């Protein structure tokens, strides 16, 4: 169970970092994030089933296409709404989510797909059965998180991103081009979303609702960590992932999302600034 929790937690973390960064820069909760994950997974699926790519050969293509889609949506829709109230952006992202899901159904159909066929032989580590995919997912997520940390703290662009999350006007005063930072944020958020989508499809199966179903848990992870905070998102993802999987020991697995939701509500009531505290 703990292993499943860590796997789910890793996937949620990748999604939550994206949601958190987008919120930090653009000040709205991106409801289309789950469907962006699904979209990335379907692109990977096309490369795997259509062109015979291995899953990890397909991942870079999934990332590139998803990033292109995210930036195109931003240019076409969100950018025009940037000077309006955040709630309008939020609702429009809801609309984008549904449009994206409809698009996925039109292209790939509503049925279930498996990204990887066949049965995997689990490893036995200290008496616990671990599938190779699980190791890939957890290690893959960890590598991405470390890479993101180095990006945000060591590179000029990463620092500019943090500066803009702190104060967009002051960032512009110092010569940082806000639109460029926004494009990069979409790039990173969408890359992580596509990766999370592929991991999710690896772990279970893929249908047009896959991403939408985990979105709630992604939001719960984001809020748990403190919205807008990248490190909080990591902690939030792992806590929600483990808590949700552990809960199946006691209650019906069908209630998994409810557990995430309950944690989110409890968190909002008790500690809206997030586990790590600081500015909300």
């Amino acid at each position, binding site marked *: 169970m703990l292993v499943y929790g860590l796997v789910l937690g890793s996937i949620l973390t990748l999604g939550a970092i994206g949601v958190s960064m987008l919120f930090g820069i653009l000040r709205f909760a991106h409801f289309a994030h789950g469907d962006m994950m699904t979209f990335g997974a379907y692109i990977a699926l096309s490369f795997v089933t259509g062109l015979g790519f291995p899953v990890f050969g397909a991942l870079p293509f999934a990332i590139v296409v998803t990033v292109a889609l995210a930036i195109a949506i931003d240019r076409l829709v969100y950018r025009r709404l940037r000077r309006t109230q955040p709630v309008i952006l939020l609702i429009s992202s809801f609309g984008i989510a549904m449009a994206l899901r409809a698009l996925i159904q039109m292209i790939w159909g509503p049925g279930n797909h498996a990204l990887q066929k066949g049965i995997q032989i689990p490893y036995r580590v200290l008496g616990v059965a671990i599938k190779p995919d699980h190791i890939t997912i957890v290690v893959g997520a960890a590598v991405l998180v470390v890479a993101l940390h180095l990006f945000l703290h060591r590179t000029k662009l990463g620092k500019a991103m943090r500066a803009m999350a*702190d104060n967009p006007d002051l960032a512009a005063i110092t010569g940082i081009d806000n639109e460029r930072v926004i494009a990069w944020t979409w790039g990173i958020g969408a890359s992580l979303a596509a990766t999370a989508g592929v991991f999710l499809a690896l772990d279970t199966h893929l249908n047009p609702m896959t991403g939408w179903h985990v979105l709630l848990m992604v939001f719960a992870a984001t809020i748990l960590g403190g919205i807008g905070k990248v490190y909080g998102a990591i902690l939030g993802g792992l806590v929600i992932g483990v808590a949700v999987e552990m809960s199946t020991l006691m209650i019906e697995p069908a209630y998994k999302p409810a557990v995430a939701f309950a944690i989110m509500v409890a968190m909002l009531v008790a500690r809206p600034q997030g586990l790590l505290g600081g500015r909300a």
Partner: protein
Amino acid sequence: MSLLKIEEVRGGYGKADILNGCSLEVAHGEIAVIIGPNGAGKSTLMKAVFGLAHIHKGGIFFNGEDITNLATQKVVAHGLAYVPQENNVFPTMTVEENLEMGAFLRDDDFREQMERVFELFPRLKERRAQPAGTMSGGERQMLAMGRAMMMEPRMLLLDEPTAGLSPKYIDQTFELVKTVNDLLGVTILMVEQNARQALEIADKGHVLVMGRNRHDGTGRELLDDPDVARMFLGG
């Protein structure tokens, strides 16, 4: 020739104009001070120079180039730096990172300039690894000015650099403005509430009322003007 020239500027943020035909000129190497009551448009004027308020009439020229309504992130490249009154540091970033952001557009080695800023503000050097949000108001003000100095600007716009500071820091800030102007040759335009002290170090002063110039003169002239003294210097 004047370095900064603001000509009959009208504009604001939305429908109602805050600036109603405001003009001023600052010559190279001068310290110019803007004083006036709250809501006179002093801060808006500075924001307008940096593309943060919209100008629909009149123009702003820096070093002979038209920078009216130029996108905010492009203004600093002209050699103009701005320290807003509030929220003028990046709170979650360290002191050193804040200074690096000040040098965002520089592709050359700016460590020397950072050392110079640390010389001006030894306090910042002590706290270089500390997040800016955990520092006192006076220290943040130092950091904001240090950040603005990182581009080695020709001109510095300061919006109420002494607001909310203790008297000790206020004197220090005025000293510093003089130092930056004398030693580094940076032209200064500042908005100030401590009108008397500011006019004492100013080459030129402007009194702004209702988004329009009410009095203009040298710092001394405004200090000696009975009208100005009665209304803005507390008798």
